[in-house]
Every structure is written in C-alpha cells, then in structure tokens.
C-alpha cells in the first residue's frame, strides 16, 4: 500500500529532476560563479508563474474542456487599476491590493456567467472575457506609466534571508493551495467533478457552485500576480501578462497534473516553473540566438512531458 502511495506521488518528480539538471549544467558552464545569482533570479521569476499556475491547476482539475484563458488580461487589468488607485502613495498599498482582488472576483464571476448562462465552452468564454478585460485595461491605462508606491516596489524586489519576497508569497499561496486540494472538502469535490461530472452530481456534489468558486479562485490568483508583477517591474504595461497565458498552462502540464482532470498536484508547479525559467537562462548562457532558443525551449518541454507521460499512460 505504501508502494502505491509513493507511486501516486511521483508525477511531480520529473519536473524537479529536469529543473535540477538544467540548474547544474548552467552553473557548471559558468564555472560555479553564477550559483547564487541564478538561483535568486530563478526563484523570483518562477514565483509569478507559480501563482498563476496554481489558479490554472484548479480549473484544469475540473476536467476536460475547463481552462481559463483570461489570465493575462486579468493580470494586466488588476496591475493597471491598482497602480492608478495607489498613485505612488504608500498609504494606499492595502486599498490597491483589495481592489486587485476585487477585479479578480469580478472577472471570475463574469467568466462563469458566460460559461453557464450563455452555455459557451470555457475556452471561448474566457477568451472573449479576456478581450473585454484587455480593452478595459487599455481604457484605464491610457498610455501612462505610473510607478508603484516606494514601499511596495522595494518589498517586491528585495530578499528575506536571501530568498526573494515574491517567492515567499508564492510559497505561502502554494501551501494554502495544497491544503485546499489535499485536505479540504472542496479539493475532493473538484477532483470528483474532474473524474466524472455526472457521477459527482449523483454523489450529491453541487457542481455549479464548485465550478463557480474555482473560476473565481483562478481569476483572483491571476489578479494578485498582476499586482505583484506590476510592483516588481516598476509599473504596469499592457502586454505584461502576455507570456503567462502559455506559461500558466505549461507549468500545470509539465508539473504532472492530468490534463484529463481529476488528478493534480501543487509541488509539480514549482518544479515546472523553476524549470521553465532555467531553460531560458541556460540557453542564454550558451549564447544562442532568440530563434534557436525558442525552438530548443519547445523541444525540451516536449521531452519532459513525454518522460512524465510514460508513467501516467497506465490510466
């Protein structure tokens, strides 16, 4: 029985193994001088992927067809709105945070309203939602670049015990998500829905309520990530969320969460996020051009998914 459990806990191993291999080769190439710097940069940038990845993971757990494509637009809107409201004043930091969360809740509710009321598949509903949200962001932003409050931006860019603050926040969110997924009634419910929506219904699970909460949760995490990213990079930009669309999905898949739903894990998202950043910096260190870098990134991702997928083929 213990054998079964360790086997079940395995899917995330692969993403960590890949991350470690890439880290070692990069550090070895630079003769060990980059070890600390590389680790800190990786943790910082991985933190943002982790936060959106956790949200996306909950949605993907709901089963085939469930996905949230409004993540980048949500990040952009919450970042721009929060910075505008805070207006460089340290006293407004909390108000800005609450506003970002509110933006997330509103977008999540909008997403599920489209899915449920208009019976649009989630992939299209969240994509159309993201157009609305992006237009909103353009309208509020109007091309000006407001700086984040001083205290907030120094918090986002500094370290505690040598670990980036944003990584600590990502760790806190991940622990909460893990408890939610593994220990709570809600976690059982989304896993049940992901395995068989009809069976879940007949087992007395409120499907609509659970799915609604999940879409809201995903949007709130994206909004939170947008708030942090805008503070970290010294201002919100309209394209700041763009790379997180593919990233949020890729880290979930590479992390060993079943795309078919019902089976997910939080640690894998860490491994995958670290790996994704490390691959890019490794190829940079080797001095490859942008084109070769993208091709190699793609190939490496495919290799990792194949290696991890061999295990899951048992299903």
């Amino acid at each position, binding site marked *: *029985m213990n054998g079964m459990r360790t086997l079940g806990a395995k899917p995330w191993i692969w993403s960590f193994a890949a991350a470690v291999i890439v880290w070692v080769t990069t550090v070895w190439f630079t003769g060990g001088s980059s070890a600390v710097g590389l680790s800190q940069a990786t943790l910082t940038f991985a933190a943002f992927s982790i936060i959106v990845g956790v949200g996306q993971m909950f949605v993907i757990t709901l089963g085939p067809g469930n996905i949230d494509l409004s993540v980048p637009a949500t990040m952009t809107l919450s970042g721009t709105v929060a910075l505008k409201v805070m207006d460089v004043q340290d006293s407004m930091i909390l108000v800005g945070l609450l506003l970002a969360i509110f933006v997330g809740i509103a977008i999540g509710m909008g997403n599920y309203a489209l899915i449920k009321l208009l019976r649009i598949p989630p992939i299209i509903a969240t994509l159309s939602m993201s157009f609305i949200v992006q237009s909103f962001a353009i309208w509020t932003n109007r091309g000006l670049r407001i700086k984040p409050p001083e205290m907030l931006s120094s918090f986002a860019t500094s370290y505690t015990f040598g670990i980036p603050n944003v990584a600590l926040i990502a760790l806190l969110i991940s622990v909460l998500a893990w408890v939610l997924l593994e220990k709570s*009634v809600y976690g*059982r419910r989304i896993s*049940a829905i992901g395995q068989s929506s009809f069976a879940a219904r007949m087992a*007395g699970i409120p499907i609509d309520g659970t799915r609604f909460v999940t879409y809201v949760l995903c949007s709130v995490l994206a909004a939170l990530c947008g708030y942090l990213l805008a503070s970290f990079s010294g201002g919100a930009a309209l394209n700041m969320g763009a790379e997180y669309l593919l990233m949020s999905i890729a880290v979930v898949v590479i992390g060993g969460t079943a795309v078919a739903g019902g089976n997910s894990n939080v640690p894998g998202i860490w491994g995958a996020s670290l790996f994704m950043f490390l691959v890019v910096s490794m190829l940079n260190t080797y001095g490859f051009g942008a084109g070769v870098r993208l091709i190699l990134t793609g190939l490496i991702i495919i290799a990792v998914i194949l290696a991890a997928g061999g295990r899951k083929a048992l299903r």
Partner: protein
Amino acid sequence: MNESVPKPEVAAARGVKVAFGAVKALDGADLIIRQSECVGLVGHNGAGKSTIVNVINGGLSPHEGTISYGGVEAQGISTARAHGIRCVFQELSLCPNLTVAENARVMHSDLKGSGWRRRGLELVTQKLDDIFPGHAIDCESVVEDLSIAERQMVEIAISFAAVAEAPKLVILDEPTSSLDAGLAAQLMAYVRRFVGSGGSVLLISHILGEILSTSDRIVVMKDGKVVADRPASEFDTRRLVEAMGSVVRHQGWERAAKAHSGQPVLSVQLHPRSSHRLQAFGGEIVGLAGLGGHGQTEALLEIYLSANGNWWPTKEPKMAFVAGDRALNGAFPLWSILKNLSISSLKGLSKRKLIDPVREQEVSERWKKRIEIRTPDMHNPILSLSGGNQQKVLFARALATTSKIVLMDDPMRGVDIGTKQEVYEILRSEASAGRTFIWYSTEMDEIRLCDRVYVFRDGAIADELVGADITEANVLAASFAGGAAA
C-alpha cells in the same frame, strides 16, 4: 390454415446455447420460422429474445447448436442476408447524417451503378406509400431531421424493400415502440399482406394485443429457453402472461403489513399519463418494476435532481443515489476505496471545511466490516475491487450519509448471488430503522422484496401493487399493454 403439409423452413435455430461469461443468455433454444408465416416472440427482459434474433441474423455465433437457412446449415451475417434475412432493430440503426436514399444504399449493396440515388429514392418512397399510406415523410431529407417515429418507418420500409432479391424473412424487434396506434395498425396490416404473399415475419413486441392478432404462431421464451410454441389461436392474453411467468415460486421475506400513518416522505406526480402518484412512507421499500427502459431510471433521476441543488451544498442531503452503471455514474476511477466511500458524507466528517482523516478512516472501516468489502486495505484503488465489491462501496457511500431516502437504479446488475443476499439483509435492517428505499430492479426476485411496487410502462406508472398482490403474474400483466384486461 392447412397444417397437414409443413411449409418449407426459411430459417431455423436448433438447440442453440450462448453464454456471456457466467450468464446463460440462451440455454438450448429452438426457433424455426417457416415460409409465409408470422411468428410472434414474447418473453420478459433477459429471456433471450434479442440474443436469438442475433443468432438468426448471423451476428452472433452460438457456442452450441445449429443454424440453417432454407434447410442448409450456414453461419454469418452475409450468409444470412444472402438468404433474404432482414432485421429491423429496436435501437434504430440508420445513419443520421445521410439522406433516406443514401441509407437505403447502406443496407442494400445491390443498389449500385449510376442513378442509384434516384432509384433508392423511388424504392423507399414506394415502399413507404405501400406500408404507411398517407405518410408525410420527405425522402430527400437527412435522417437527422426526421422524428423518431419517421425514422422507424423509414427503417421498416428499407428492410421490406426489394432491390435484386425480395426479402424472405423480416425480423421486427419492437417495431411499434415508437409508432402511434394508427401507424402500428398500418404496419400490422402490411405484415399480414406480406405474409399472405409468401414472406415470413418474426415479430417481437411487448404489446400482446399486436402479437395475438398478427401472429400465426407464438413462441414464449423464458430464461434462455423456449417454454411454449403453439398456434396463436390457442393463446389469449391471460394464458400468454402465465406462460411468461416463472413456474417455481420463490419465497420473499415476510412483509410486515404495516398500515401507513402520517404523511408520505415523498410524493410526486411523475408523468402526466401516470395512473398513480409515486408515494413513499418512512421505513418503506418501494419497488419500481416493469420492463427495462420504460422510464424507471428517468423517474429516479427526476426525483433525485429536483431534490438536490446544484449550487450550494445542502446541510443534510435529503436523498442519496446508488448507481446501477458503475462506470458511467458511480465510481471515481482515480480514487481509493476510502475516498469513493466517503465522498457523499464529507460534510459530517469535516471540521471547518477540512476533512478529519481519523473519522473518515473510522467510517470506512465500519462499512468495510458491515458490508464486507473484500480488500486488505481501504486505501487501495477502487478499480482493484471486483465489480460486486465496487457496487458494495457505492451502497456504503449512500448508506453512510444521513439521507432519509435512498434511490437505487438497478444496482444489482451483474452482482453475484452471495453479495446480493448480504446487501438485501442490510437494506432490510436499514429500512426497519426508518430509512426509505426506492428501488428500480429488473429482477423479479428483488421486486418481491418490496413493500409496494409501481409498475412502469412507456415512461408512466401503469399500476400500483401492494403487499400480497406483488406477484410476477401481476407485474407482468401490468408491464404488457393489453395485459391489464386479464
């Protein structure tokens, strides 16, 4: 009819045995169809009617026994077709994305060469006019756009149509189930004309009136055997129902003939045509009987879905549901036995929304012992269990809740007899403790365990039986249209 000289055989199955695993679908059945006669085939669910049809049309090779067409032993679908055997299936088999003429081409490979579309169209139109005069079917439309009744009519017309060779034997499996009375009468009249002109028909129907008025000879099947094979004139509705019933009387447990006091815990009007409201009192086992697929599962789903909300978790769910089709709506394949068992009662097992693992373990061990789930460890995956034990987990899932009403959708399908006895025992003790069970079953032995039984026919409740009236004969009589008069 002059029976002194036997007419030549069209198709014959002799001493046929077919087994699916441990289930004997056919246990030495004989069925002979002669030229220019209509044979009626009746029997309750699982009697082996569909299996013997599949043997005769060549779709299924028997494990024992012989098949012959026109006196020549042969086997296989193409051989059967070459001997003029045609079959109209109960579940419609037209391709919905093709037109009527194109479907005719699918069934008749002789329809070839240039202009096959036009000829197919003429062929089907003419046959439809012939069988169902006054029909309004546009044969150039795609099958998808036709109603269920129209599709059935088209399929019948295509089967009776002759391209190169006229059909010799047409098997009609429940052909009138989706036709109204007028169309059914037209079809039966055509069957008589077809038989009169030398063709043969094997007619399967649960409408006994149809069988009695149209057939020359009636074959009654039960438990994979032919139990009666006599000219139709020797039968009437009552005798037919008796022939279908079981010979050996099993003993049900003794029902406490309790008088119901107070309000029913459940009372619903299911279908506008239902003759009774479905009612259930506390501590009662209510059976839903009738032939399979006559609306019992739909009734259970309707009752369940209207009682359980889809948005907010209810504090104390009013009803629990035991699925009959484990793979479709029961087990969660990725989970352990433990998680599968506790999913419906997590509310009572958690503190501040977090599951208490100790109490979850306790509950699962208690049910493991009580319902005897055969596994060394409840953390093993659910799929490591045999089908019967998986079913027990689903029972335990429902019984572990605090729900006062438990709905059961034919949960004993494919469960061995030992497991059944264990579960019956638990149902009885739970019922005497005040739980109400609503139990759809296709097995007569289980229906006899119920305190009250509603017999379903065509999606509506046709009859209510209480106490000593719950007998196989009464259930069968109510299940078959026309049987009510007996």
